[in-house]
């Protein structure tokens, strides 16, 4: 079920009313209810793949208990149990997401040496959200193994933690230490939290439907005919995609956080105005924070982080970004994209000390530089394959203004999209300055001001939004 679908618009209010009015006395029953609706939410996409979530979360529940019950002396058994969890989770992920990629790459490698194999790829459907819930479930067994937390004995709570519908298919990837305890107590309705949740949902829908889906039309058409889009169109498409990706994904996170909030849950912040970052390390503290911190905590730091010498630090950084690229998709393009970003971090932050430019005009330059580099790296992320990505770099330029309106957006809509992006960036600049106070101030304004904003947001989505049967409105990160 997509957040921007009619199904969800019906589903959410029904679940909300049942949650607060029917299942409001007993925490166990309420969690069972949340579990069922989360499975229904996922089942709207494909019921068959619910079995994967159930198997992986049930196994992790028991493995974590077994790890916890095994004495420290018996390190072999503890390790075995952890490896069992890793094999199970990464096994599912590996098969459904990477089988064809690895086998294909293996065969291509042999072909380079003149050894040919007959191979036709398996027709494997990639289960929606598998990368997200696998990492979430995995972090639990890892945390129990590393004794960062005690395992829960309540299986329903754990199953609900893994499948909690607001963040099931595209995050934020929550840590058990933060989210799991929230299933332990009966929540009391908090008006202010629910109100801010609704505002977040609306704002998320605004970003997705008004901006991301509109510029997606232009991006899809230019990337669909790279040679025709030669020049300025391609340049705009490259920059647009950076905004599309951000607004699409951050919109999903906003809606997820907002939806969780109306049920009394607090999810982690996933984006913190990344395009105002002044260095690459600063960028990764603002972009897809739940994944970045996951890689930091479970890969980078266990590998030694930056504590064991400069050379090893570089290797660790490259390793993390390589894996991050691979996490995004089973294609060399994603691997290249990830690795390039690792190199950016090493070269520009560590060698050229970009991270020191936090202030004044230097910061503006640094932010623009980070954004431009990131946008160019995303060519690999967006292009269908490596040769298309190279074609984009070959054809990008400042000519071909006459063709600018041949790619799905006419002059009015293209300008409108640009104004909207400008508006969002202006808002982010203000939010960067005032932080949480901005929202507090907003709630203190007169009702007419607040209500006007609510109406502007919702009515502009309805009347000016980019939606309809001709548009593909799914979220980009659903494919991961």
């Amino acid at each position: 079920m997509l957040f921007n679908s009619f199904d969800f618009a019906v589903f959410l209010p029904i679940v909300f009313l049942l949650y607060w009015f029917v299942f409001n006395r007993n925490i166990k029953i309420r969690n069972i209810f949340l579990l069922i609706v989360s499975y229904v939410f996922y089942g709207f996409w494909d019921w068959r793949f619910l079995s994967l979530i159930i198997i992986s979360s049930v196994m992790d529940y028991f493995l974590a208990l077994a790890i916890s019950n095994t004495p420290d002396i018996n390190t072999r058994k503890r390790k075995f149990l952890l490896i069992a969890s890793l094999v199970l989770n990464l096994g599912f992920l590996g098969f459904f997401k990477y089988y064809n990629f690895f086998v294909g790459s293996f065969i291509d490698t042999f072909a380079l040496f003149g050894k040919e194999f007959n191979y036709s790829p398996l027709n494997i459907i990639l289960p929606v959200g598998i990368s997200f819930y696998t990492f979430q479930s995995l972090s639990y067994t890892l945390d129990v193994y590393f004794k960062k937390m005690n395992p829960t004995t309540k299986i329903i709570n754990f199953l609900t933690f893994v499948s909690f519908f607001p963040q099931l298919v595209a995050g934020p990837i929550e840590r058990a230490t933060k989210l799991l305890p929230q299933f332990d107590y009966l929540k009391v309705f908090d008006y202010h939290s629910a109100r801010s949740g609704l505002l977040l949902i609306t704002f998320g829908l605004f970003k997705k439907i008004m901006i991301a889906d509109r510029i997606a039309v232009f991006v899809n058409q230019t990337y669909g005919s790279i040679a025709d889009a030669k020049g300025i169109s391609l340049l705009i498409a490259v920059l647009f995609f950076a905004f599309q990706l951000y607004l699409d994904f951050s919109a999903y996170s906003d809606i997820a956080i907002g939806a969780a909030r109306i049920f009394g849950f607090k999810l982690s912040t996933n984006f913190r105005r990344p395009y105002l970052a002044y260095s690459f390390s600063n960028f990764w503290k603002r972009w897809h924070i739940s994944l970045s911190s996951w890689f930091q905590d479970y890969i980078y730091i266990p590998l030694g982080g930056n504590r064991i010498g400069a050379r090893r630090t570089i290797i660790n950084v490259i390793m993390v970004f390589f894996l991050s690229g691979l996490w995004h998709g089973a294609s060399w393009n994603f691997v290249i994209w990830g690795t390039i970003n690792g190199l950016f971090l090493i070269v520009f932050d560590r060698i050229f000390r970009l991270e020191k430019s936090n202030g004044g005009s230097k910061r503006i330059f640094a932010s623009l530089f980070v954004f431009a580099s990131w946008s160019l790296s995303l060519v690999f992320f967006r292009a269908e394959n490596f040769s298309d990505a190279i074609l984009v770099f070959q054809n990008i330029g400042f000519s071909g203004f006459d063709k600018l309106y041949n790619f799905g957006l006419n002059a009015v809509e293209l300008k409108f999209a640009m104004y909207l992006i400008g508006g969002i960036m202006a808002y982010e600049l203000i939010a960067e300055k005032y932080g949480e106070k901005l929202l507090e101030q907003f709630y203190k304004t007169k009702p007419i001001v607040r209500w006007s904003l609510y109406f502007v947001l919702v009515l502009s989505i309805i009347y000016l939004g980019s939606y309809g049967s001709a548009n593909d409105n799914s979220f980009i990160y659903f494919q991961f």
Partner: protein
Amino acid sequence: MANTNIKQHKTTAVKQATTQVPVKQKTIYNLLAKVAFFSCVVIGILFYTDAKGYFNPDYTNDHTRRKWNAYYEFTKKHPVDVVMVGNSHLYTGINPENLSTALGANCFILASPGTTQTDAYFCLKEAIAVCKPKMAIVETFAINDYDSHQLKAGTLSDQFKSFSARKNIIQKLTSTPLLFTSDNYLPAWSNTIRNHSFIFNDTEQIKKNIALIKHKKPEKQGLYLGRYARFNSGIEDTTLIKYDRPGFVAYDYNKHPASEEARKYLQKTIELCRENNVELVFLTLPMYYRHVHNYNSFKEDLANELKSHNKNWLDLQQPYDTAAFSPECFENTVAENQHMTYYGSLVAAYKLAHFVRANFAGKLPDRSNDIKWKQLFYASDGYFQNHSVEKDGVNKILLKNAIAKDNLEIKEVDFIKQQGGNLLLVKIGNQNGKTFLGGKLKIAVEAVVGGNTMIVPVEVMLTHAYMPINHMLFTSQPLMPGVEITSVKDISF
């Protein structure tokens, strides 16, 4: 000093605490009330723009809507005897005026372009609810591989149009989830939601809609039975050559096997007609015989589906009447979807009329002597070809009930005045199977040409286009302007 200040501060705080009214905690009911109010306002605004029609599509080209409007208007005054449902093949392939005049009945086409069998079923259901016909005719081209929930943009747009044109709210509500995926429920019901992008890409249409609101004129509706004569010229020789290309296949029935949904709604259509005691006829309109491949597989499949209804199936594709369905009958295209021309729609209409008369004798009323029916159809397309001319001061009967040479039974010879050239119509008895060599008759008529009276020979032809049930019809080519025929002098083969 400092102590005094603290004391003062404390005292003020205590005073404030005692005088302040405790703030009432806002509850879930507050939120629900606000959300409900907010939703009502938004829905109200949406409803307003829908009602005003700011985002209406260009209805001047929406013949589906025109059909439904006409159907509702027509049924207020007249009964409908035959309702036909299907897709564009039907409304271009059957001329309803000629069918009506041939049968002496009221026949209405409620077909919409690109429709599915599911949509056809719901159209028929609503049509029956408005005015129960004696007979329903279902064209079979909509029994294809379409699945309502997987329609592509173009076909989906047609389905939206068809749905939007219907008026029965309850039936529309119940059919919504069957015709559309959930994401299309709102676009199906609201023109604003469906066409909101006009703001960016069709502001002219919005301006037109606003102008229309200001100067709304009542819709004038003459006799309109749902036809749409879209193509007037047949397949040209240059197009026919394309069929000779090796391996060329224009329409392959094997690529469009009936979907499960189409089968299901075919059965539901049969059930619907049975429940309502409506005679059901299936009609397959032809495409040019060289256009179609693997028709047999479709025919066998459909025959299995229809079972006992097979006898009610008029299949004009196979056996194919090569003489009647000449290239002139078909749209000049080798693209997959080939429609019939106006001429073809006449041929098919008369074949259908003969089929209905032969197989359903007495099931349809013959209204041809009913004064109201005559008023409705008089001078409409096909009326004079099927019925007698009245004393209308314009058209004339030149000869009536006479026996010509070789015992040729002349029922009537008419001089018909019409736009595009006056006509001479010769109606003769069916002649018990007598054949007319060359399908021609020669007539000598007295005519006034430029003020001079003279005897003029006129050739009239038996055509495939008009095949009335009760007589054979010979028609002249359109006559020269200004020629007034006053009497018939001689008729011969």
